[in-house]
């Protein structure tokens, strides 16, 4: 399982790249591996307010439809439209295939660093 040392992680398996008061959000390698082949991705509209630990969109794999949770509070300022036609990019490049960017970030105090997330995933797998 790949984990990017530069990112922060949520218990619901989203990754966050924090830059100033903006954050880029995607799904982790652990998440994409558990979900299996992705077939559809929904994305929120720009300007949507997202709330920490609440779903902001959903994704569909060959197994199931799953909610994606916001790891921080903020306002959506960009969405990765390319995923709509190529959701499989999340499977092949989970840390490159970001879902949304949010600005005006707050919250996210209990996000994990890479080492803590790796330990968390191992405890999940047991």
């Amino acid at each position, binding site marked *: 399982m790949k984990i990017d040392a530069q990112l922060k992680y949520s218990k619901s398996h989203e990754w966050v790249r924090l830059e100033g008061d903006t954050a880029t959000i995607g799904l982790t390698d652990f998440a994409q591996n*558990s979900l*299996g*082949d992705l*077939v*559809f991705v929904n994305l929120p509209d720009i300007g949507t307010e997202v709330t920490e630990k609440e779903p902001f969109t959903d994704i569909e794999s*060959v197994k*199931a439809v799953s909610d994606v949770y916001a790891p921080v509070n903020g306002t959506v300022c960009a969405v990765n439209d390319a995923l709509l036609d190529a959701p499989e990019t999340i499977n092949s490049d989970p840390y490159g295939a970001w879902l949304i960017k949010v600005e005006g970030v707050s919250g996210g105090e209990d996000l994990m660093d890479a080492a803590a997330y790796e330990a968390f995933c191992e405890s999940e*797998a047991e």
Partner: protein
Amino acid sequence: MKLIFEKGAAGRGCSILPECDVPAVDAGSFARKTPARLPQVSETEISRHYTALAKQTHGVNDGFYPLGSCTMKYNPKINEAMAALPGFTGVHPLQEPETVQGSMEVLGKAEQYLCEITGMDRMTFQPAAGAHGEFTGLLLIKGYHTARGDQARTKILVPDSAHGTNPASAAMAGFEVVNIPSGADGCVDLDALRAAAGPDTAGLMLTNPNTVGLFDKNILEITRIVHEAGGLCYYDGANLNAVMGVVRPGDMGFDVVHLNLHKTFSTPHGGGGPGSGPVGCKSLLAPFLPGKMPVQGPDGWQWETPAQSVGDVKAFYGNFLVVVKAFTYILSLGRMGIPAAAKNAVLNANYLMYRLKDHYTMAYNHRCMHEFVMSLEDVKHETGVSALDVAKALLDHGIHPPTMYFPLIVHEALMVEPTETETKETLDEAADVLIEILEEARRAPQSMHQLPLTTPVGRLDEVTAARKPVVRYDFSAGQAG
């Protein structure tokens, strides 16, 4: 194989249908401008076409079909014989009641017996299947609160062990869904339920036994919490087969239930349908029932529209002939046979689980109801062989796979429901095959990803099937597209 549209030739045909004895009418602007592009094939071609299709399928007549929560039990042939009686097949829903008293009696008696089995007061047969029944039941709950002038009840509580359709049905009916987590024991977390129940609670949807095959021992407390908060309790009857004739949802505290006649009451399921998802309710919800209800009066059976009906959810009286089949099943089994079938379903599930538990990891390692859930997570971790691979391997042994990747609270899940109609020999064979597959997974994991090898089609491209499904025949291209 060729599609039916690719067979035959212009002018070819057969005389299966009798001459039309209804006078032709001019449909005016609604008349189609070109004739329908129906296949023109001989009776031999049709017969061979559908026989070839039937040979490529797997049904309960072909072999073991332990699809969890789907209750793929045997469909007794007498059900078909009764549903084919001309008195049932030759009637029209708009006939005067006095000319269809027998059919109305079937609906009335089936309602009475199913109400006895579920502990409900009235039941409608309009809904076409389970999720449609859920939707109808939620409309009753909404109608009830609205009629009381209580507009604040906008939320439906749904445990995470519920059937996957429950949240979707609640959303369809205009409710907001509140997810209630399960405890480590696989049952509803009572503290989480207490915290969520309140003045905005319209109701709770619960499947009991739940989708991990466990009977929630706190069921009376659960329905009490919801009732004290002013909500109503909805019973998803998907898993009634474990308890039919043994305990009644009405006695557990439920106000409204749906049944799947195509699961619990032995009518065909899946492509052999159609289904039937009757909704039963306590008398407080009866005024809101959809459609027309059969009522027996001094002059025989009559139709009656409930006073505050939510309106039709399907034309006329639902899938009537399915009710005839289920009614036949109830009469065949009788007062003693109904609970005996449920107990055998539980016995069969436990027997198969105990045969497998030293080999496969059980998600909840205690006695189950009518189904049990295995987790392949450790096998996947160790060998790379997933629940999907094991499911595909079963196909090569003539066994339909169990339900995969559900419930979502168990990773790499296989949910196995053998049903009461399988013999010990069949269960032993299935157990031997599953154990053999696991040994194969450890010995040659790579080859497992290629299975199945002996079926009409091999490993399907599920991603393309989901993203770019081909669902129509393109006449201009002369191919499906």
